[in-house]
């Protein structure tokens, strides 16, 4: 099958995913654009009329523009939680600068003689604005809105990381699985969407040349309706559902998605609660913040991460049981969070190399690497590069390893870089599917730098007080799932594009935790 055929097959099979993501993307972009327009256009007009204070205000929006989008999204979570709210705020903020600057320039650039003619003819302030300044400034204002719109549609792909969904979901999945088709399935519609919006705005602009700015109002009204109607409909439709909702989340990747689907299946099997899943919610700090904010009720976390990242402690021991107790007690004392029983497998950090490198050099352990350190190139995730005790700094300290060339890279890209021969060593998660896919070798951590990483549900105490039955239900997974089983399930989802929920159900049925389906 050619690449293009593969791509179109994926499109056909995943058209449901694409439709949902596309709609979320459109909705999010339109709302953000409308907010940005409603703030920036009147503000721009005001600044142009009064002239004073224009530069500081426009400067402020320019500063907002320089904040990296992901940082801005992360920064908003403690205040407004996760989901579409922070995404819309951040996206609106990004579009402010071009719209504001162009509105200001456009209105200010209207020939003063024309303004004086309008005034001398006895137009009121409002009439001058509507009949003269705005129509004349409209091409410039529209250019600003179009720039803002392209920015929004592009940046909205990052909103997936804070749980806002959209086409970014597909791109993130693609990056995570090193699956270019998924990336394209997100990126191409995003580009087409930007072109479509641009075409609509350009047509509006053409139509509204002359003294009438009615087409602009028509488009704005259409946009508001498009966004508002489904939401209002949903609000009415959603009433009377009545079932109590529990929201569980997982970080980006196949494994958390599979595990929280197991949670959902188990809880819904044994209670009447409805479990809402927030899948692929970015990195540790974003999910954790969402839990503290009560945006979610629980998520799937590892003991090792809890100890070193969230508690900022050194692991007391390399024993799984002791590490769990340290994590459980620490999380409860520090944050009032409850760690339920961990599962059997470990998804620990590992340093991984290709089979070829192992054959060439015979490395088996991390200690063995030190003899070649001057010839090696490594690609690490930002998180690993940064983690003091159980990341690269910890390795450097304990093993005295000093790799000649270290690059930092997105998690989804580093395995490919390794296979492509661009780098020799990467940090890996031991159960990730690419370990199977590329036959990678995890080097033995002979000095025990990496703490145990056992996965378990992490819930807020108040959730367990309200729903005490969750504890026994979720604890059924305690001690279950081996490393091989997990790796295989990850491989199913990542490589064979299986549904996480189906994979989860399969396992639970086989393990006897769920009754087999009626058939």
């Amino acid at each position: 099958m050619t690449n293009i055929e593969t791509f179109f097959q994926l499109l056909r099979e995943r058209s449901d995913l694409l439709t949902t993501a596309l709609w979320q993307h459109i909705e999010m972009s339109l709302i953000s654009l409308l907010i940005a327009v409603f703030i920036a256009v009147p503000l721009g007009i005001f600044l142009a009329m009064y002239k004073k204070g224009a530069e500081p205000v426009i400067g402020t929006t320019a500063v907002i523009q320089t904040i990296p989008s992901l940082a801005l999204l992360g920064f908003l979570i403690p205040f407004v939680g996760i989901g579409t709210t922070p995404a819309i705020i951040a996206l609106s903020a990004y579009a402010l600068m071009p719209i504001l600057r162009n509105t200001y320039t456009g209105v200010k650039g209207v020939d003063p003689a024309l303004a004086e003619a309008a005034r001398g003819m006895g137009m009121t302030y409002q009439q001058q604005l509507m009949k003269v300044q705005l129509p004349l400034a409209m091409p410039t204002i529209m250019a600003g809105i179009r720039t803002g719109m392209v920015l929004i549609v592009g940046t909205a792909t990052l909103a997936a990381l804070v749980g806002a969904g959209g086409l970014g979901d597909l791109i993130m999945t693609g990056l995570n699985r090193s699956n270019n088709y998924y990336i394209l399935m997100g990126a191409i519609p995003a580009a087409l969407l930007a072109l479509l919006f641009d075409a609509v705005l350009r047509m509006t602009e053409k139509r509204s040349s002359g003294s009438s700015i009615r087409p602009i109002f028509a488009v704005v009204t259409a946009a508001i309706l498009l966004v508002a109607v489904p939401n209002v409909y949903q609000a009415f439709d959603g009433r009377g559902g009545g079932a109590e909702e529990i929201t569980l989340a997982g970080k980006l990747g196949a494994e958390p998605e599979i595990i929280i689907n197991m949670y959902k299946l188990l809880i819904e099997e044994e209670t009447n609660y409805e479990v809402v899943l927030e899948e692929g919610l970015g990195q540790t700090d974003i999910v954790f913040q969402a839990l503290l904010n009560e945006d979610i009720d629980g998520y799937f976390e590892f003991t090792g991460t809890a100890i070193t990242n969230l508690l900022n402690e050194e692991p007391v021991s390399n024993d799984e049981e002791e590490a769990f107790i340290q994590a459980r007690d620490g999380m409860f004392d520090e944050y009032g969070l409850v760690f339920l029983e961990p599962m059997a497998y470990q998804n620990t950090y590992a340093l991984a190399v290709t089979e070829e490198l192992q054959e060439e050099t015979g490395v088996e352990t991390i200690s063995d690497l030190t003899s070649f350190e001057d010839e090696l190139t490594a690609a690490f995730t930002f998180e690993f590069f940064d983690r003091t005790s159980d990341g690269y700094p910890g390795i450097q300290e304990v093993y005295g390893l000093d790799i000649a060339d270290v690059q930092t890279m997105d998690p989804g890209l580093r395995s490919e870089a390794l296979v492509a021969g661009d780098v020799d060593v990467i940090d890996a998660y031991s159960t990730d599917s690419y370990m199977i896919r590329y036959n990678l070798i995890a080097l033995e951590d002979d000095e025990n730098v990496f703490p145990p990483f056992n996965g378990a549900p992490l819930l807020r105490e108040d959730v367990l007080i309200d729903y005490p039955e969750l504890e026994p239900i979720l604890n059924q997974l305690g001690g279950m799932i081996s490393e091989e089983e997990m790796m295989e399930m990850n491989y199913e989802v990542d490589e064979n594009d299986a549904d996480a929920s189906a994979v989860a159900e399969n396992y639970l049925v086989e393990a006897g935790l769920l009754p087999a389906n009626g058939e």
Partner: protein
Amino acid sequence: MIEFNQVSKAFPDGTKAVSGSSFIVDKGEFFVLIGPSGCGKTTTMKMINRLIDASEGTISINGSDIRSKNIHKLRWEIGYVLQQIALFPHMTIAENIAIVPELKGWDKNTVSDRIDELLQMVGLDPATYRDRMPAELSGGQQQRIGVVRALAGDPDILLMDEPFSALDPISRSQLQRDIAKLQQEIQKTIVFVTHDMEEALQLGDRIAVMKEGEIIQIASPSELIANPADEFVASFIGKKTSPWDMTLEAIDASPEAAGPSISRHTTIREAFHIMKEKNVSSLSLDQSDQHVSLEMLTGFVQQFTDHDRGEGVK
């Protein structure tokens, strides 16, 4: 009737643009404000439609203080023609003309008829020009529309701020002739700002010469030429024009028609030639019971030569 009573204007930065001006513009009069740049002539004019508010004194129109009226309604009754023409580039000619009538709430048909009437008045075919955009017109045509737009709401007063200075010489003299003719037909009170003495002498019923915010002299063209109030006025006139190039309007005509009829916009040089050609000693002014004689022409030109000689001696 526009009355200025001890009107001054000081700008926030302290410069005094106009100080203590008092004068009356009569109904139907063509009143010209002239002076070098920065003399306050434009400020004086803009105080009439309150584009600039006077800092001291009162301005009244037909006896009532302009500040007692709603500012927008006041402006609807005062046509305004700008030096930059300033037709709205995004509106058609018809839309430009319709602005004040629409602001005044006239009904559509009345506005439409008014547009046609005005376009015909300035010699532009309504069918051709109504739906054109300003950029498609020549400069001279644009300013015709500028004048028409100012007249659209049928104001009593027309303010014209150096309306022809941006035009090429041919369009300028054409428009000068047209506005003089128009004034005779419609009898509006016109306040006209210029720095071109020839234009002032040709068009003005009375001319107010300004310098550094003060009005030095208000007089009819012939009086101004005959009796300039001071050296400044004299030099201002002398520099700007030769008596041969002035029109018959500058001369105080005698009553009763005598001799062949001639337009009062004819220059004195042309009038001489006509008299010589036709071998007559007087010419009747078109559409009036007045005439000018050869004697009056020579006397008028003489005044200038005397005046210039006087200048030379000093």
